């Protein structure tokens, strides 16, 4: 532990002096962190994971800590709670209501953990003990800090907590085990445990990262409610700039273990002064913006924390770098002419509001494809699906299997993809997106439904030759670039394999590989490296190069950027955009991030329980969603715009995606539909008994939505009887309480 926490030292310690020097009065701060440093000893030397974090958290306020993986945000939170392994070296000061927490023994910390300061972790699936009931685990949190509480009082409180976080029939659910809950439900339980003792500080570490967007919206709402009920101050740790925009009062941006910019939420989003923050904001695609511009890529990777930086840690990636930047690490200093907005950049004064981030980071121009000018109807079809179905029988019994139901993973899917087009499928997990891809890749004549790839139908795919011809037409890029590349293959071998299969000669293979490396923006002399020598973004580029090796017409992208950090993601999206235009590729993409879909796609299909509920041009579907599910999905996406987030009206769907076994007879979505809930009984009957077909949007409705300019013919289709029905008020949420931060 640090030397300046020695109790024998009578003079004011360094930490206390820092406290005194604090910029705004820390006396009323509920949590006050000063000069927090954490380092771990590794085989290669000390890793400085957190370097000099300072912040004050006022009661009832929310601080958002934003950063990419490895920026030290989670380590900061674990250090505050004293949950780091004993090998971590921690110095500085963490004061909770004026009491120093650093240096306390594990036992002494237990009086605070779960009582005054509580935490919600990232992965709800593994964060609850599988062998104890939910009730036991909530009651345990109560017992630890209230030993005198009676058994019945604890049980009443546990029921109250579960009800507060929105778990239906809480009394019965107390006896349920974690595995009987969905991910979103488990995260609610985690929140219930965290707020059990009315903490003053609640730390949420990426609480919604592992969840679907609709569930994310629910959980954020629960967190918001929990904060209102308990009056706790919240530290929200996230990599998603959208998640914190609506709920945070202050933001701290971290990079390489150090806060690089702090300020009120409006300061950070509307007037960023540190190039890294500016880059991050420019790197996020937005779901609510039509205008197409390239994303801001931040080249390079975060620095290795083994070495203490001699200059600005962002300098190697910063486009504005000058020699002065390399001379000593800049400290957080107030931005001239603002309140307590601070940035760790020597140029923060000159990076005012009128600086265009696209210019600074030299974002590439929007690529134009030769197909862009040809109307869609005149382009040839590269992929067509006709009524594709994939039903899995659900059986019971060990010896004699009885069929007790059918899981309709994909239920009558039809769509087509034209040349030069990007078509995306969106939906929650379990909606059948991946099964659709697998069905296309399967390409077998016994499939239910017809798949036509580049003019070759699966019904005639009898011989291996036809199949291999099909494979040359279509290739796939996978979600996890690390898992998709053989760790024992060099990049050369990875790229050579498909070419060998296609019968290329040795010199041709070599030539083609060099071409590919250039194409995806990798250095050609890196071909002899192994995948683990590359960063995540570079690995995904290798994956893309592998897919492009045999010159396919169609590339299937399965969540191509979801495993990547925001700044890296932008580079890969730009690359995909560029390749599509240059090579005239078509993409079939599956993604859960609607912002990415909006940015890159031309057309989109929204899937729910194996069916397409809405399909059409991406701008039309996103700007004028007709199906209630599309509307709910879009309203659940957080937008990195604080003003917009504070005032927007959200549809919070209730419950989870129903089990395919319980799917209703009529409209699949009826059980969660906000329109259905508000319909009179007579109309509800129609939803429950009849299956709504996919129908084109009537011209009048579309015309009203896009009043300006001539109305081009629309191919937007949706499957709902009452698209204009009123929404149920219980599912609508507007936060009017949040006001802009007083300067």
């Amino acid at each position: 532990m640090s030397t300046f926490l020695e109790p024998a030292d009578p003079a004011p310690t360094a930490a206390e002096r820092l406290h005194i020097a604090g910029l705004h009065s820390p006396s009323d701060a509920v949590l006050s962190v000063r000069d927090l440093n954490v380092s771990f000893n590794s085989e290669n030397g000390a890793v400085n994971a957190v370097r000099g974090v300072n912040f004050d958290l006022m009661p009832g306020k929310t601080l958002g800590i934003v950063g990419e993986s490895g920026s030290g945000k989670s380590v900061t939170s674990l250090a505050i709670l004293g949950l780091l392994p004993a090998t971590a070296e921690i110095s500085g000061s963490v004061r909770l209501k004026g009491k120093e927490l650093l240096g306390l023994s594990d036992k002494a910390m237990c009086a605070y953990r779960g009582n005054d300061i509580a935490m919600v972790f990232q992965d709800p699936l593994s964060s609850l003990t599988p062998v104890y009931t939910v009730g036991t685990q909530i009651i345990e949190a109560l017992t630890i800090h209230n030993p005198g509480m009676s058994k019945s009082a604890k049980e009443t409180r546990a029921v109250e907590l579960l009800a507060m976080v929105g778990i239906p029939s809480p009394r019965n659910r107390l006896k349920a085990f974690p595995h009987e809950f969905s991910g979103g439900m488990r995260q609610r339980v985690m929140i219930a445990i965290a707020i059990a003792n009315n903490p003053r500080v609640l730390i949420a570490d990426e609480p919604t990262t592992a969840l679907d967007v609709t569930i994310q919206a629910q959980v954020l709402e629960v967190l918001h409610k929990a904060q209102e009920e308990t009056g706790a101050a919240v530290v929200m740790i996230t990599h998603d700039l959208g998640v914190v925009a609506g709920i945070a009062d202050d933001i701290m941006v971290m990079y390489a273990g150090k806060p690089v910019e702090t300020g009120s939420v409006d300061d950070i989003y509307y007037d960023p002064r540190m190039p890294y923050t500016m880059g991050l904001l420019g790197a996020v695609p937005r779901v609510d913006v039509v205008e197409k511009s390239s994303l801001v890529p931040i080249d390079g990777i975060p620095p290795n924390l083994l070495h203490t930086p001699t200059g600005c840690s962002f300098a190697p990636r910063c486009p504005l770098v000058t020699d002065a930047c390399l001379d000593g690490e800049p400290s957080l200093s107030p931005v001239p002419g603002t309140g307590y907005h601070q940035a760790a950049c020597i140029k923060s004064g000159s990076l005012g509001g009128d600086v265009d981030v696209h210019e600074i980071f030299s974002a590439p121009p929007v690529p134009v494809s030769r197909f862009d000018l040809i109307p869609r109807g005149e382009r040839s079809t590269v992929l067509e699906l006709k009524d594709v179905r994939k039903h899995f029988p659900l059986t019971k019994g060990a010896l004699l299997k009885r069929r007790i139901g059918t899981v309709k993973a994909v239920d009558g899917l039809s769509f087509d993809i034209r040349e030069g087009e990007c078509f995306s499928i969106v939906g929650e997990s379990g909606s059948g997106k991946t099964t659709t891809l697998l069905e296309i890749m399967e390409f077998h004549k016994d499939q239910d439904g017809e798949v036509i790839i580049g003019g070759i139908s699966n019904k005639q795919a009898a011989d291996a030759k036809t199949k291999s011809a099909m494979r040359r037409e279509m290739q796939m890029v996978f979600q996890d670039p690390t898992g998709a590349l053989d760790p024992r293959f060099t990049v050369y071998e990875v790229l050579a394999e498909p070419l060998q299969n296609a019968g290329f000669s040795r010199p041709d293979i070599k030539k083609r590989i060099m071409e590919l490396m250039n194409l995806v923006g990798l250095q050609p002399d890196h071909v002899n490296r192994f995948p683990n020598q590359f960063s995540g973004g570079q690995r995904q580029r290798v994956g893309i190069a592998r897919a492009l090796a045999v010159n396919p017409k169609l590339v299937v992208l399965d969540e191509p950027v979801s495993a990547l950090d925001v700044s890296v993601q932008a580079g890969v999206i730009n690359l995909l955009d560029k390749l599509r235009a240059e090579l005239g590729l078509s993409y079939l993409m599956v993604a859960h991030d609607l912002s990415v879909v909006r940015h890159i796609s031309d057309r989109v299909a929204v899937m729910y329980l194996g069916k397409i509920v809405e399909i059409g041009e991406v701008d039309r579907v996103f700007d004028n969603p007709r199906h209630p599910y599309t509307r709910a999905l879009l309203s659940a996406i957080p937008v990195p715009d604080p003003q917009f987030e504070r005032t927007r009206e959200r549809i919070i769907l209730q419950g989870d995606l129903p089990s395919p076994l319980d799917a209703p007879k009529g409209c699949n979505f009826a059980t969660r539909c906000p329109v259905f809930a508000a319909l009179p009984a007579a109309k509800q009957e129609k939803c429950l008994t009849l299956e709504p077909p996919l129908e084109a949007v009537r011209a009048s409705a579309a015309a009203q939505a896009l009043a300006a300019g001539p109305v081009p013919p629309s191919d937007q289709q949706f499957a709902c009887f009452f698209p204009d029905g009123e929404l149920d008020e219980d599912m609508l949420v507007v936060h009017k309480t949040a006001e802009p931060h007083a300067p």
Partner: protein
Amino acid sequence: MIRYLAKRGITYVFMIFLTTSAGYFLAVSSLKPALLEQERIPRPTPEQVANSMRLKGLDPDLSPWERYVEWLTGIVTRWDWGRSPNGSFINAEFGDRVWISTRLFLAAIILTLVIGVALGVYSAARQYKFQDRAITSYSYLAYIVPAPIAYFLVQLGAININETVGERIFFVTGISTPGMQPGWAQFVDMVAHYAVPTIAITLVGWGSYQIAQRQYLLDNVNADFVRTARAKGLTRNQAITRHALRVSFIPVAQSIAFTIPAIFAGGFFAEKIFAWPGVGSWSIDAISLQDVNAATATLAYGSVIFALGAILADFATTLVDPRVRVQ
């Protein structure tokens, strides 16, 4: 649960029947007790041998199938597992031997389990410290050293103690001294006989449980749910004992459940070396003595023990792991 158990039970009964029948055919076609009889002095005539065999129900002139039917009828109708070539009844012999094996192994296996699991937890909590390294190294050593050698070493140690003290404190073989008066002296005699085999079996046995328990617990000490428990306000040790331990015990409980019935099946080496005539040594002797019925009976008994172990393992898993409870 009862329906599930009944289903499993029926499956196992069927399997036991199959293995036992197959075992009988193997034994009856390869074991020829009549050959041993011929080595007696004075040498009996073949007719005499066949006659004596026929009287014990081991007629060598019948075909294997006929003998199988006869044997099976005896079991099904009279629960009579037949006789040995020396004339003793399997049923009577069996009860004695099972009881001997049980007495030999009961204390040892309970000690093995308790010590193994406790040391596993202790060493996991002190990962890579001196205690952990010492305990785990010992376990691996016990793993590699063949059991008979370890038993002999313990025997030698006990003999050494006896010699050093100059008095016979421990008996290294046998079950009890014949002709002891009931009371204190008999109890002391029993302890003196039990000590050596129990210590020997325990010393050799706990290693595997220690290694398994240590490994499973270490897999869980840094689990997310342990971190959650600590965030609630439990100390690290409390969080590990209340949350990680129970989860890490699931696979260990399974292997324990499998072990418990094995107590009654005995072990060949231990019984031979410590001269306790239990089921384990009997099963091997049966083969060398060309004893068809005894060999088959021990095989059937082994199958039953295995089936019980499997059912117990299911039970144990359901008991400790709510995720697999059958609805």
